[in-house]
């Protein structure tokens, strides 16, 4: 079973040379720490920077330089700043190669719900709806089940949707899953996790073909 850093580490392997990547808040943010340093990757933050770097050294924080999580950041050589319309132009225009974000629920048809729980305080969708509506490669980083132990990989989302039929891959504490036409296709098991455990934690249709390898981090 993986912890949050493990999930991030596994997702980092999906980041390929030459990718522009948008990282959501939470586990996705951790992915940056695990990307191989022999490939060329640039991180986009939708508030208006391409070429986002690590947190600044203490004392060098700049109030005018933050990421979409409102954290102080740095800009790497080759970075650029732009306005919000241009930023979402990049996203809508499919120039960002990979979007990694968290979710409360994913359905077997690729629907995602990650912005609203009816009856609870709603904080808003931020840029998530734009990201999932346009990106061609969307990886969800999340725990396989919620705090109550219920599956987050469902036949149908019960929460209000963020986007329809858009998720391509899911990396959880238990498994790597590809969303295919027929449902959740199991690709890899987390270290020490059995197919049965994954099956039990998955409400939606899980497709298990042949031997499922344990993931290599």
């Amino acid at each position, binding site marked *: 079973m993986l912890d949050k850093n493990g999930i991030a580490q596994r997702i980092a392997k999906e980041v390929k040379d030459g990718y522009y990547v948008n990282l959501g808040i939470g586990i996705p943010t951790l992915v940056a720490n695990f990307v191989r340093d022999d490939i060329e990757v640039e991180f986009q933050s939708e*508030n*208006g920077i391409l070429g986002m770097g690590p947190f600044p050294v*203490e004392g060098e924080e700049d*109030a005018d330089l933050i990421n979409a999580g409102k954290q102080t950041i740095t800009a790497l050589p080759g970075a650029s700043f732009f306005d919000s319309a241009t930023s979402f132009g990049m996203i*809508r225009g499919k120039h960002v190669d990979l979007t990694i974000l968290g979710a409360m629920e994913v359905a077997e048809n690729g629907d995602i719900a990650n912005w609203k729980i009816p009856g609870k305080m709603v*904080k808003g*969708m931020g840029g998530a*709806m734009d990201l999932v509506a346009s990106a061609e490669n969307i990886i969800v980083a999340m725990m396989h089940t919620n705090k109550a132990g219920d599956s987050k990989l469902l036949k149908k989302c019960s929460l209000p949707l963020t986007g329809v039929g858009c998720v391509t891959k899911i990396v959880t504490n238990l498994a790597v899953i590809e969303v295919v036409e027929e449902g959740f296709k199991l690709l890899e098991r987390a270290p020490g996790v059995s197919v049965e455990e994954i099956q039990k934690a998955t409400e939606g249709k899980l497709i298990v073909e042949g031997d499922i390898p344990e993931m290599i981090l």
Partner: protein
Amino acid sequence: MIKKTVNNVQEAIEGVQDGMTFMLGGFGLCGIPENAIAELVQQNIRDITCISNNAGVDDFGLGLLLQKKQIKKMISSYVGENAEFERQMLSEELEVELTPQGTLAAKCQAAQQGFPAIYTPAGYGTEVSMGKETREFEGKMYVLEEAYKADFAFVKAWKGDEAGNLIFKGTARNFNPCMCGAAKITVAEVEELVPAGELDPNQIHIPGIFVQRIFQGKNYEKRIEQRTVKAKN
């Protein structure tokens, strides 16, 4: 050259009235029009509709207007980090319209550039598109979103000149350029106001034609919401 300078924030916001719709630049607390907000609080302008990506924090940014219950309606993409906001929203004192962030930017820019509406894929199939016209282009579904209308746009830039030309800094740019010229009157406050001719015409982010009034702001606090740092090596 057409001069856009006014002497102070009071002159800059002249004409604001209760019940108006304002656009306010900024992302979180980054690049917000601090002076204009403070003056709207000061003048106790009420029943405002705010088009702003966020709603500030409890004691800063739009939170200051919320504290005094001056805001009737918020149009935003993300409104967390604000307990008073939450209280007013749950008690239905405050009307809230949540819009995807890219749609928000596009609806401002559409108003700026005279596009009556745009088609965006964001929100299709979600409650955001409920009651809205949708349409297929080449096998993909889009939602028709109309341009915003506003009485004033309040923006904050880094440098500006007498002609109203603006240059933003870092990610404090965000929604500010999209809102310039998107309201009947655009008011820009800048950290540094210079005479016309001092800014390189090649480096202007927003030409002065999109700005009606510009003034030198004061006492910028530029608060940081999430101070994240790494240790020195």
